């Protein structure tokens, strides 16, 4: 093993180390980076860590919540104020993976993983990152589109606004193995209602493209309308627009395109 491990006390020092070394990867829970090392990934020669308490902080008291990048899914599940995120957190791994895997790491998890990020994308989360030249906030959609080029930056935290009601945020993961399994497809919907009509609909899909994506055509079908059968049918039939799923062991691209509308209809109509 020819890997150098660099451990820093602050996130900014770790970010500095990442930004100057192209072969460095940041290690948090280990479910992605240790797996790559176990598989003999020679592109990683340096592992960077930070023991910075700011990275594991949860601020869930107000209308806008912030999760440090190093917060594990087990901690999300233990937080009563984060009930709206419990379904996505519970859908990940078994207990050991939830004790290890983190909110920040999930942003980098490739298909068929990255389910928590689907929920964050529907919630229009903001990702705080630190590069060599200071920190900035990036909308999650923009972050995901440039994910492959984020290697030199360190994710500090993610934040989002709490949904107005339990009805306003919905999540559904389709897996072949229950209760644990990789995603065939994952769906999340944020449906704020204003005066009986949907205002600011966001639908996010996992395993329907190389990264988590928004179903913009389905969002347009919902926007400004009440959530009735006709609206739901229109959104469901638009669900595949702009998607580019692939074949993998869990399902074919064809199968994913066939079922995404069905599951979006069920999600929007509140069916189990």
């Amino acid at each position, binding site marked *: 093993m020819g890997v150098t491990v660099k451990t820093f006390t602050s996130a900014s020092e770790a970010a500095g180390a990442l930004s100057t070394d192209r072969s460095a990867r940041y290690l948090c829970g280990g479910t992605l980076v240790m797996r790559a090392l176990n598989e003999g990934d020679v592109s990683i020669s340096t592992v960077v860590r930070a023991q910075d308490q700011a990275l594991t902080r949860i601020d869930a008291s107000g209308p806008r919540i912030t999760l440090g990048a190093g917060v594990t899914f087990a901690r999300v599940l233990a937080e009563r104020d984060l009930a709206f995120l419990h379904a996505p957190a519970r859908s990940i791994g078994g207990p*050991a993976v939830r004790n290890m895997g983190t909110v920040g790491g999930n942003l980098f998890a490739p298909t068929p993983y990255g389910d928590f990020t689907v929920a964050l994308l529907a919630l229009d989360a903001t990702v705080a990152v630190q590069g060599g030249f200071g920190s900035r906030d990036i909308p999650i959609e923009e972050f995901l589109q440039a994910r492959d080029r984020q290697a030199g930056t360190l994710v500090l935290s993610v934040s989002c606004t709490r949904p107005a009601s339990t009805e306003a945020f919905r999540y559904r993961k389709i897996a072949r193995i229950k209760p644990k399994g990789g995603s065939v497809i994952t769906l999340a919907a944020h449906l704020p209602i204003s005066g009986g009509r949907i205002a600011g609909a966001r639908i996010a899909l996992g395993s329907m493209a190389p990264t988590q994506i928004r179903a913009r055509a389905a969002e347009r079908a919902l926007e400004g309308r009440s959530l009735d059968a006709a609206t739901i049918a229109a959104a469901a039939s638009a669900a595949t627009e702009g998607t580019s799923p692939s074949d993998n062991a869990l399902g074919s691209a064809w199968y994913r395109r066939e079922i995404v509308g069905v599951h979006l209809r069920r999600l929007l109509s509140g069916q189990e």
Partner: protein
Amino acid sequence: MSKIPLQFRHNGRDVAIFVDGGTNLLVALRELIGDMTPKFGCGQGGCGTCSVLIDGELHLSCLTLAETVGGRSVETLDGMKQGPNLHPLQRAFADHFAAQCGYCTPGMLMAAKALLDRNPSPNRDEVIEAISGNICRCTGYEPIINAILAVAGGRASA
């Protein structure tokens, strides 16, 4: 590449070893300490047979960077037996035919212990959830679930 000194508690005993950079905890336990109870299955976090408790919390040792356990307490199946006697979970696994080939058993037992340490009287769904990260290709899971429930029931009535 220089070796990294590492000290932690292993089944209640202090151990000190030198690890290479990037060594995972499973390799450190098996090859450097000689505790062969956690098994190597997939190296990807998919099978669960390398499961250990770190400070009482269930973790996958193959995905844990060894040096991150410095100063912490690591429990493996090797520490489960109580003197010459089997732990009640081990006894129940034997009584309920919960092990066939035995490869998943170390991880299953640690996952079950993690559950019962936190929740002494789980219901069936909670048992299923607790071992959902552990794959068994022999038993069909039912004997394992029944063994864990038998221990939970025994404790509840005791």
